[in-house]
């Protein structure tokens, strides 16, 4: 019986079906095949054997003890049940296995458990020597797995891992990690054969300049038989291998044997990085290398397939993988045993970078065994979930080895999600899929890895939440329900019982961070001496001098536009040249006038001369012309003199810039760089330095004696943070000044004209254009959001972007100071909250809201009512003297800060925490607004309702955009009141996290 009513929506139906299936699965037991007594009639031998085989077949398909049932919808999107309309199973095996329920054998689960256990155990041991190995977002899921799969002694617990892989998320996670490992290992194989082949042939293969088919290797082998024989005696192992392969008596042995030989002569590994090889093919090569006859047999199958080796791709991708951060390389080395620094790329050839004795810790033959066993586990897993197509035996699709023609048939939910995220990532980075596998491999690889990590994170999130655990949304730390409750309770009690200690602790943190205050337009950071302030001043000074210089040159050039055409003049020297040329022309003109007058006079017949009159006419005219010309000449001479003086002045400015820059580079910039490098050595990544708060970094970094980083090291940490941000900003300054002029579409005959035109653009026009061109570390901050900018600096900035390193550092410094300022403020707020009892009030508010019956029915009823819900969509800013929000605390929030405080924010707070009707309304409001800030509220609604609004840094309209979008969608039926109810749940969960200290 189908328990799902046919009229339900597909999503609801699927979920219902799952629920019902689960409940049925828990109550049902495997039925006995046939309990009726067999008839005692005597059967013939053949009939008995047929009967036995039938029973054996039936038993084979039955679940065994330890096997686990799952709903297939947890793994694949396929809807086929494998049963035809008459209720008969389809004959083809893979179709039979497409039933709704799937059974994964105890053995497959065990293999995944073993694999994951070993993987985590490796990580755990590697962490003992490199505690920063798993820093960064990319290893979040592994940090989480290590946290809850460890036993009390801090060792990975096989029992816990086994339990974990009994869930669909656990199995999928193990399978994905398995794939990742296999990808790296298979790539190492590919590199080895590339080295070996390159060494043998002393050149890349000719065909298509990059590709060689393994069939060609075979043909090469036949041509090299004599060479084998000649070299045979020197390598007994190789001879044995050859013997094994040749004894196979099949043609495929050629490839294996050649490879074996090549490896033993020139390298130590062999095949294969090929994404499309089946495990049988890999096994064939592997077997052949060991001299097994099987290698030959299986090798033949290999040759019937498209076994192209892409040498160029190997080289390109090696470059990409070698460009990964050191931490990532250390991670790969730890978990796979492969060290990609063993290889080099020289002139397009892959070569070994180290002597054999110094190469990777794990030998290629062990890697080969690992690949083989993992591929078998993989194949068993795919078979169990009903994907038994030949392709599923393949080495997993490998983004580090492009193969444009390879489309895996392993259509699983996680693969779809990975592809979806990968495509989104490429699109947002403006990379075409073809380029991602070609000229922009490194970026493609990074985006693909990020997509995989994200999917792993999502899977683990699903597991965590569905198993009653809570998670710190910011750090990813997982707590069991018990931990969470304890945390929540103890936070409140700790604060209540130990307020003084808390205060002291906070005071010490605040004091260690120093104090930041505003002095005029400058932010001064007192706590860590005036050094950062000095840097800021020096940078500002350089920038201002540079602006002065550019303006000066432009003014001088513009001033002389009446005597020379300024087109094509970019500096004063060029102006001088043009003035000189003009002067020389005019001197020539002067002589010509004199000569012309002379000629004219001489041309008059002396008899006809009326001397007085003719002389007077001709020479008076000449003198008038010369006088006019000399005026011009004098002007140019004056301009030349002025320009010469200006050059001296300009050079003085240049010298000042040079002096300051040299001072900055010698002292401050050098120190920034040095401190930054030192923190990288400690294993902290650039992103961590740029994005974490001082407090978070202090927690992350332990100095050798195990203490938190001390005050004396804080200035170094701050330097490193500034440098990290500066580097990110510099990366994102994508255009030089001339490119900007070009990109703005300003066409004019000269740079001067272009700049003039640029100046004539309206502020809006410039802002629009610059917003497109200018991005910052966060990816999308628009030019118009930069503070203290106006049109003139913009023009100069456009010129300076090419020399913008200092600008970037100045901005990074500002960002860092602002961040620390916020951190200090947050600590002060906490301090204030403790003293004023706000924390206790927050505890009560959260407790009330957590009794969901106080909130949920109200949410549904107010959002159902068109009149009532309007106030939650009201984005008008609350005036400072509002009588709707009359308390001092409410008004204070309205007037403070820079972000708009629309009415909707107050209404949402009241909906959830009911602050308006309580005594001490103002204090209650303060408590509630401390739990969920406006921007956080908007962020939760955005995420929970799947609005997809991208928030750029300093986006003052984010809240308004989110609320407007909710209103639009609500009015068009795309959001229901029940979805709002669910979003409110997320807000309550967030407030609980904030109160318990899980969210800072």
């Amino acid at each position, binding site marked *: 019986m189908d328990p799902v009513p046919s*009229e339900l929506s597909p999503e*609801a139906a699927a979920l219902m079906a799952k629920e019902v299936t689960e*409940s049925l699965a828990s109550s049902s037991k495997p039925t006995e095949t046939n309990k009726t007594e067999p008839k005692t009639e005597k059967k013939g031998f053949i009939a008995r054997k047929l009967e036995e085989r039938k029973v054996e077949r039936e038993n084979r398909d039955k679940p065994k003890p330890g096997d686990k049932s799952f709903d297939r919808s947890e793994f694949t999107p396929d809807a086929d049940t494998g049963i035809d309309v008459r209720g008969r199973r389809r004959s083809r095996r893979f179709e039979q296995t497409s039933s709704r329920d799937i059974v994964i054998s105890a053995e497959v689960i065990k293999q995944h458990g073993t694999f994951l256990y070993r993987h985590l155990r490796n990580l755990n041991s590697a962490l003992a020597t490199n505690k920063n190995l798993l820093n960064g977002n990319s290893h979040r899921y592994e940090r989480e797995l290590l946290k809850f799969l460890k036993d009390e002694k801090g060792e990975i617990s096989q029992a816990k891992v086994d339990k974990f892989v009994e869930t669909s998320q656990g199995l999928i996670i193990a399978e994905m990690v398995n794939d990742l490992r296999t990808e790296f290992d298979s790539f190492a194989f590919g590199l080895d054969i590339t080295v070996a082949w390159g060494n043998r042939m002393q050149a890349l293969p000719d065909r298509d300049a990059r590709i060689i088919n393994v069939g060609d290797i075979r043909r090469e082998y036949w041509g090299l038989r004599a060479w084998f024989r000649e070299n045979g005696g020197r390598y007994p192992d190789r001879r044995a291998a050859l013997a094994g392969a040749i004894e196979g008596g099949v043609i495929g042995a050629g490839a294996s044997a050649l490879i074996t030989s090549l490896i033993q002569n020139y390298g130590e590994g062999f095949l294969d990085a090929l994404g499309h090889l089946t495990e049988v093919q890999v096994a064939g090569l592997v077997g052949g290398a060991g001299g097994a006859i099987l290698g030959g047999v299986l090798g033949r199958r290999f040759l019937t397939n498209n076994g192209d080796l892409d040498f160029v791709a190997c080289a390109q991708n090696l470059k990409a993988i070698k460009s990964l951060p050191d931490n990532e390389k250390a991670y790969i080395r730890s978990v796979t045993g492969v060290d990609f620094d063993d290889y080099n790329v020289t002139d397009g050839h892959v070569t070994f970078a180290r002597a054999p004795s110094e190469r990777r810790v794990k030998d290629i033959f062990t890697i080969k065994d690992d690949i083989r066993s993992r591929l078998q586990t993989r194949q068993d897993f795919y078979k169990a979930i009903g994907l038994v197509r030949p392709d599923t035996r393949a080495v997993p699709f490998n983004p580090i080895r492009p193969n444009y023609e390879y489309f895996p048939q392993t259509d699983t939910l996680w693969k779809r999600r990975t592809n979806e995220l990968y495509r989104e990532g490429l699109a947002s980075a403006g990379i075409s899929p073809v380029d991602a596998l070609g000229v922009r491999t490194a970026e493609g690889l990074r985006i693909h890895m990020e997509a995989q990590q994200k999917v792993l994170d999502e899977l683990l999130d699903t597991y965590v939440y569905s198993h*009653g655990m809570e998670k710190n949304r910011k750090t990813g730390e997982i707590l069991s*329900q018990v931990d969470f409750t304890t945390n*929540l309770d103890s936070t409140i009690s700790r604060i209540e019982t130990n307020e003084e200690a808390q205060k002291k602790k906070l005071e010490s943190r605040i004091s260690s961070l120093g104090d930041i205050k505003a002095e005029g337009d400058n932010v001064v950071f007192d706590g860590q001496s005036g050094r950062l302030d000095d840097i800021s001043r020096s940078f500002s000074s350089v920038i201002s001098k540079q602006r002065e210089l550019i303006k000066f040159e432009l003014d001088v050039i513009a001033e002389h536009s009446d005597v020379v055409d300024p087109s094509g003049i970019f500096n004063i020297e060029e102006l001088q040249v043009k003035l000189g040329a003009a002067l020389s022309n005019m001197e020539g003109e002067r002589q010509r006038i004199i000569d012309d007058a002379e000629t004219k006079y001489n041309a008059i017949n002396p008899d006809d001369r009326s001397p007085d009159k003719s002389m007077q006419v001709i020479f008076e005219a000449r003198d008038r012309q010369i006088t006019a010309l000399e005026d011009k000449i004098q002007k140019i001479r004056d301009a030349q003199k002025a320009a010469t003086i200006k050059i001296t002045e300009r050079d003085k400015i240049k010298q000042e810039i040079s002096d300051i820059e040299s001072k900055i580079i010698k002292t401050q910039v050098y120190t920034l760089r040095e401190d930054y490098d030192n923190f990288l050595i400690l294993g902290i990544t650039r992103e961590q330095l740029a994005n974490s708060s001082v407090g978070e970094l202090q927690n992350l970094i332990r100095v050798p004696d195990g203490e938190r980083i001390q005050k004396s090291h804080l200035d170094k940490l701050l330097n490193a943070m500034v440098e990290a941000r500066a580097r990110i900003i510099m990366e994102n300054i994508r255009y030089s000044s001339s490119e900007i002029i070009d990109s703005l579409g300003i066409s004019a005959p000269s740079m001067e004209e272009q700049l003039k035109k640029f100046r004539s653009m309206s502020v809006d026009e410039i802002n629009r254009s610059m917003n497109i061109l200018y991005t910052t570390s966060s990816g999308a901050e628009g030019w118009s959001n930069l503070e203290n900018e106006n049109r003139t600096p913009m023009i100069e900035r456009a010129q300076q972007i090419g020399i913008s390193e200092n600008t970037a550092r100045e901005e990074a410094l500002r960002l860092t100071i602002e961040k620390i300022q916020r951190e200090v403020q947050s600590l002060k707020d906490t301090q204030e909250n403790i003293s004023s009892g706000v924390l206790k009030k927050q505890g009560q508010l959260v407790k009330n809201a957590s009794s969901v019956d106080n909130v*949920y029915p109200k949410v549904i009823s107010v959002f159902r009512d068109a009149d009532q819900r309007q106030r939650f969509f009201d984005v008008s800013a609350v005036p400072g003297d509002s009588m709707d929000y009359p308390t001092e605390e409410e008004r204070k929030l309205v007037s403070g800060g820079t972000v708009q405080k629309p009415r909707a924010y107050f209404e949402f707070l009241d909906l959830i925490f009911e602050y308006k009707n309580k005594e001490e309304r103002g204090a209650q409001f303060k408590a509630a607004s401390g739990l969920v800030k406006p921007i956080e509220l908007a962020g939760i609604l955005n995420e929970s309702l799947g609005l997809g609004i991208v928030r750029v840094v300093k986006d003052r309209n984010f809240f308004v955009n989110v609320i407007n979008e909710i209103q639009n969608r609500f009015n068009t039926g795309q959001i229901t009141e029940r979805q709002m109810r669910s979003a409110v749940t997320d807000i309550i969960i967030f407030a609980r996290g904030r109160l318990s200290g899980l969210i800072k």
Partner: protein
Amino acid sequence: MNLTTENIIKMLSKNESATKILLERFNSLNDDERFEVSNKIWDLYDLMYEGRLQVNVQKALNEVAANKKELSSDFYKKVKEETDKEVEKEFFADTTSADINSVRDKISKIIGNPAT
């Protein structure tokens, strides 16, 4: 009837004895457990409700197409009210549809009492 977690439990219990057991268990949970469980129960209820609503909206639209109903400005509001009534009514009926049964089973599991 007000929509509260306890009422949802009552509505979705198969009989009085099941109601009693479930409510006892529910009330014995600590605040945090109760928060978790309440959310799951509301999620389930909402899921089933949304499914019903979708069906009813479709039916109502069919009636509009057949000129049996007017597409007024409070069209959705009315359909929701009808759905509320329908769901509430069905909760108290002896025989219930499969979707409600499956929610019943699930709620029993969430609170920790196997479906009977």
